[in-house]
Structure formats: structure tokens, C-alpha cells
């Protein structure tokens, strides 16, 4: 029983780690990876919580949502990578120009 919540907590931890990396890193590839890790955490939570059925097979609805979500995540990642390549070919660097933290430098 408790292992279900262990999986859910691990998924939640992945989400938090991904969010930290998303905020900290400026490089767009790292941000894309961080969003993917956040998504994997959400999928893990969904699949884990779907198993809260008494002895029966897990709830198929969250499983179907995760299957759909994985394909959507892959296509969104591809679009994000294409955007990143375009940003790099336009500006020469794979980071966004906006530097909201630059005032902390001096």
C-alpha cells in the first residue's frame, strides 16, 4: 500500500528538482531537459496514484492520460529544440537575451 505513495513522492521530488533546474539554468537546452524531468515526475505521480484500487487492475484512465502525455511531451520537446536552434542561429547563443538577474552582478 505505502509503496504507491513512495512512487508518488518520488515523482513529486522529480517535479521539484526539475523546477529548480528550470529556474537556475540559463541555457535553453538545460531548461528543456528540466521541463522534461518535471513532466516525468507528473507522469510518475499519475501512474502511482492510479494503482489505488483494491486488488483490482489499476485505474486505466490516468494510464491513458500518461500515454497521451508522453507523445505530447515528445512533440513539444521537438518543437522547443527547433526553437532553441533558431534562437542560436539568430543570436549566436542558446540563451534568452533577457537577463533579469544582471542587476545582482554589480
Amino acid at each position: 500500500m505505502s509503496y504507491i505513495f513512495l512512487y508518488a513522492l518520488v515523482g513529486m521530488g522529480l517535479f521539484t528538482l526539475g523546477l529548480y533546474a528550470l529556474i537556475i539554468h540559463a541555457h535553453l537546452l538545460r531548461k528543456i531537459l528540466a521541463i522534461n524531468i518535471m513532466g516525468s515526475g507528473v507522469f510518475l505521480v499519475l501512474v502511482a496514484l492510479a494503482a489505488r484500487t483494491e486488488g483490482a487492475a489499476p485505474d486505466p484512465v490516468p494510464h491513458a492520460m500518461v500515454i497521451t502525455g508522453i507523445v505530447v511531451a515528445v512533440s513539444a520537446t521537438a518543437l522547443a529544440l527547433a526553437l532553441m536552434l533558431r534562437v542560436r542561429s539568430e543570436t549566436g547563443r542558446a540563451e534568452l537575451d533577457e537577463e533579469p538577474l544582471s542587476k545582482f552582478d554589480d
Partner: protein
Amino acid sequence: MNNTGENTIPLSLRLLLMVLLTVMAVGLAYAVLSLPAQAPGLSVYAVENINISGVSNPVTAVLLNYRAYDTFLELGVLLLALLGVWSLGCAGCQHQSSPGPVLDSLSRLLVPILIMVSGYLLWAGAHAPGGAFQAGSVLGAAGVLLLLAGWRIHAGLAGLPLRIALVLGVAVFALVGAVLILPGGQLLAFPPAYAGGLILLFETVATLSIAISLTALFLGADPDEEDAS
């Protein structure tokens, strides 16, 4: 490549962020742990109606029958992502790879196996874990392997035939959904007698569209424009 910007963030700010995220994580953990330990959710209804869904695997029944609408829109999302990638032009991604002998011979060996596995997953989806998404992903992986080995789509197929294959999934969903409305039914509400056949049709076209979309996403630029330029 210059540094990733990681070092420009002062330690105090990173510590503050860690504290904030820890608070968020504790809140999320509390929310997860306070959920009831037993919650069958919708599985009762999913299993009750499995006999009229046309398949015996509940996940496939949810994806292709109860919530076929989701799968329909999901194919649309895949198409939109591909349109977005193509519209970006992808200036820097025309890499000409020269595959070594290992990749060359391995892809010859693996691609037929991947196609067979994909066909099996498609068929098995009716009664076991599997289905259009898994089969499409495996078939897409075969396409990516071919691209890595230097294969490119034939110029005659890069135009209209490729586009027809890409929209096939969405088009069949929309067409059959519209036809099912005509006799007074609802969008994508299958009559139980035809549900099995319709699901197999949907899964087949969805597998093809998903696989070709994923392969095209990996390639980046529109192969038709690539040839023209």
C-alpha cells in the same frame, strides 16, 4: 559555448530558491499523502463497459473508445508541433552524417525487427498492454534510426504523399466521427457492433501518423523544402 549562466546567480538567491521549493515540496507531499489510500476512480465504469467497447484491454478502451476525443486532439497536437518545427525553417540543422559500418549494418538488421514489433504492439493493444501510441513510437524509432544511417525520403514522396500520411490519423478520426453523428449519434460514440473494427482502423492510421510525425520531427526541416533549396 560560454558558461551556462549558472554562476551568475548569487548563492543567497539560490538558497532562497531552495527554501521556497522545499516549502512547495512539503506542501505537495502533504497533498499527496492526505489522499485516500483506496480510490478506484473511474476504473469501475471502465471495467463495467468493457464488453461493449470492442477491446478487452481497459487502457486501449479508454484511449480509443471512451475518450477517443483525447486521442483525436492529441494527434492534432502532434501535427501542430510538426507545423511549428517546419515553419521555423531549421537553418542550422542540416547535418550530413556519415554512418560508420556498425550503424549501417545495425540499422539494416534492426529496422525490420522494429517494424514487426510495431505491428505486434498494434495488434496486441486490443487485449494486452500496447496500442497505437506504443506501436507508433517504435515505428518512429525505426524511422529515426534510418535517418541516422543517412536515409532520406524519396523526393517524389516528400511532397503530397508525406502530407497525406501525416494528416491521415486526424482526417480518419474527423471523418468517421462526422459520419457517426449523421444517424443521430454523438461524435466518436461507436456502435458496439462495429467498435472493434473501428478501433483497429483508428489505431492503424494513428500508428502511421504518429510514426511519420515523430520521424519528421527528428528530421527538423520540411524534406520537400530541403530539396527545393
